[in-house]
């Protein structure tokens, strides 16, 4: 019998899933507290002036204080209270989309490379390659539709933005439009 089918494993997986959720809640509230602290500290460097004529520091101080208080409440709530998940989240606890997360990182790396090389390579070449690789990454297999997509979208967006809207897209190696 596979481990996930053994008696009690459903409870175990539900517990693991809830534990991860609670950890995520706690981590997110700590990040929000950090954001609030940074915002308040930076905001306190701007002058308040006086209440009858508030300066640039007034509004950030008010908003920052409310935000920090709310984030603290969320943190305390996450720390002390576990979440009660409905039974059907057990299915999510069994399957970990690891392959999906790998694709996500690859896509982000692809986008990073696209941006870093855009000025040099130019919009046409970079966008064609972005279409090609991102379609393959997301599971497209047949070359015909992929090429059609890559060429169509690259040329289509070029015509709309560069030609019609006069948005100067990076020329790169290809040179003038």
């Amino acid at each position, binding site marked *: 019998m596979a481990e996930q089918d053994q008696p009690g494993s459903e409870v175990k997986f539900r517990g693991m899933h809830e534990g991860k959720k609670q950890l995520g809640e706690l981590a*997110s509230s700590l990040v929000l507290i950090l954001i609030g602290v940074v915002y308040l500290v930076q*905001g306190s460097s701007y002058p308040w002036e006086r209440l009858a*004529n*508030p300066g*640039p520091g007034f509004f950030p101080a008010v*908003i920052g204080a409310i935000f920090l208080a709310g984030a603290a409440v969320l943190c305390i709530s996450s720390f002390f209270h576990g979440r009660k998940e409905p039974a059907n989240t057990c299915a999510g606890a069994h399957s970990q989309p690891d392959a999906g997360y790998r*694709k996500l990182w690859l896509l982000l790396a692809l986008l990073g490379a696209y941006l870093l090389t855009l000025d040099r390579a130019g919009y046409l070449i970079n966008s064609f390659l*972005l279409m090609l690789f991102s379609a393959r990454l997301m599971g497209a297999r047949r070359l015909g*539709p992929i090429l059609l997509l890559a060429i169509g979208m690259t040329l289509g967006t070029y015509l709309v933005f560069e030609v019609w809207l006069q948005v100067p897209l990076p020329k790169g190696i290809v040179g003038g439009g």
Partner: protein
Amino acid sequence: MLENLLTALFIALKPVNLFACFIGAMVGTLVGVLPGIGPTGTMALLLPITYGLGPTAGLIMLAGIWYGAQYGGSTTSILVNVPGEAASVITCIDGYQMARKGRAGAALAISAIGSWVAGTLGVVGLMLFAPALANVALVFGPPEYFAIAFLGLVVLSNLTGKSPLKSFLMALLGIMLSTVGLDPISGADRFTFGIPQLLGGVEFVPVTMGLFGIAEILSVVVEPYEVKDVMKVRFRELYPSRLEFKRSCAPILRGSVLGFLVGLMPGPAAVLASFASYGLERKVSKRPEEFGHGAIEGVAGPESANNSATSGGLVPLLALGLPFAPPTAVLLGGLMIQGVMPGPLLIQQHPEIFWGVIGSMYVGNLILLVLNLPLVGIFASITRVSPSLVMPAILLLTVVGAYGVNNSLFDVVVMLIAGVAGYLTRKLEFEPAPLVLGLVLGRIMEGALRRSMVIMDGNPWTFFQRPLSGILLFIVIALFLWRLVRIWRRRMASHVEEA
């Protein structure tokens, strides 16, 4: 009123406006059909294209996408049991059951007819309400504007997502982002950390594209949606029976009124309207046992309500210049890019924009009714396109769209950061809509608050001495207290259970 209506139609039927209306309605229908990116992300995506169209045609196109999506969302709900758009979730319940019984054509027809009736009645409401509210708003001062914007964000937080606290924190985060850049009153730079591109502030368009577009793409990359088989519907089946039509009339009218009123409120109006309508129809129905098994009222009411909600949602934007939902925030962005400031004076200073939108909504609803039914097979077949081809296309559009805002790669970087943040916040059940609203309303709120303090000579209690701002802020306080009471009662109940 007749004169205004004729003016509206005259403006709407100008070739460029008609073209923009058609494109917006068709794109909106496509967006509604396809799971993934919704109308808000699409409107933000196409915002740069409005530069070339001008303010009237640009706004017409963007509005067309919004109400067009409500039509499209019902197609996949009925044929595939997958809502293409959040406001069509409820239509899956009875719409798909009707399809399983061989009544898909009737469901689609009633959905389209109901949407058209509701859309048309909603536009009538917009024509009546917006100018009246704009006249009243002429006497509003900065305290009233601050109070309305603050109440709007608080109500939105209460109605969006599973946790009002999380939604409120997202709204505050949006307001905090709105303070980045040059202070509009003193000119001091705030929170730029030495980055010159931030002097102009955080651009709304890349953030919205990131939160609604890139985040969705990342979600699909991690967990792709399945391409499902679509039921085929023949053209000759696209009509309801006499009994179905008779049973739909009252729900359509009720949905139209309810949807418009819900649309006036802050929040995800179309979604709330559809759910509220379903609940109402079930309550008043003589055959409540049919709901969930193919009751035509369960399609007619909600699909009407979500359409008229879009008209209701335009009232605060066009009359007050305040967006209470992400799509109207994008519309506000579209107007501001063109140098037009919505508000009580919009109807007087730019009547062609206001009446052009009104007229185009009449025309657009008609276009959607006439085209949606015969083309339902084509629209439905689009759902068979694999996400591995759809998502890269949307990816490139968002990248070039963000770049096109200021010809700046920095905006693309902002969009990607917002996209990653949007993906993470979704996983942790934080809603992105309040952040977008906070980013837009934050600037309005700060300006109103600081001007109010000057007017009131630094005495904040004066907010409560002015009738309207006092009432609105009192409602805000009451909402907070009500939430606290609910939490306390829930804790007491769980302590008693444990004991």
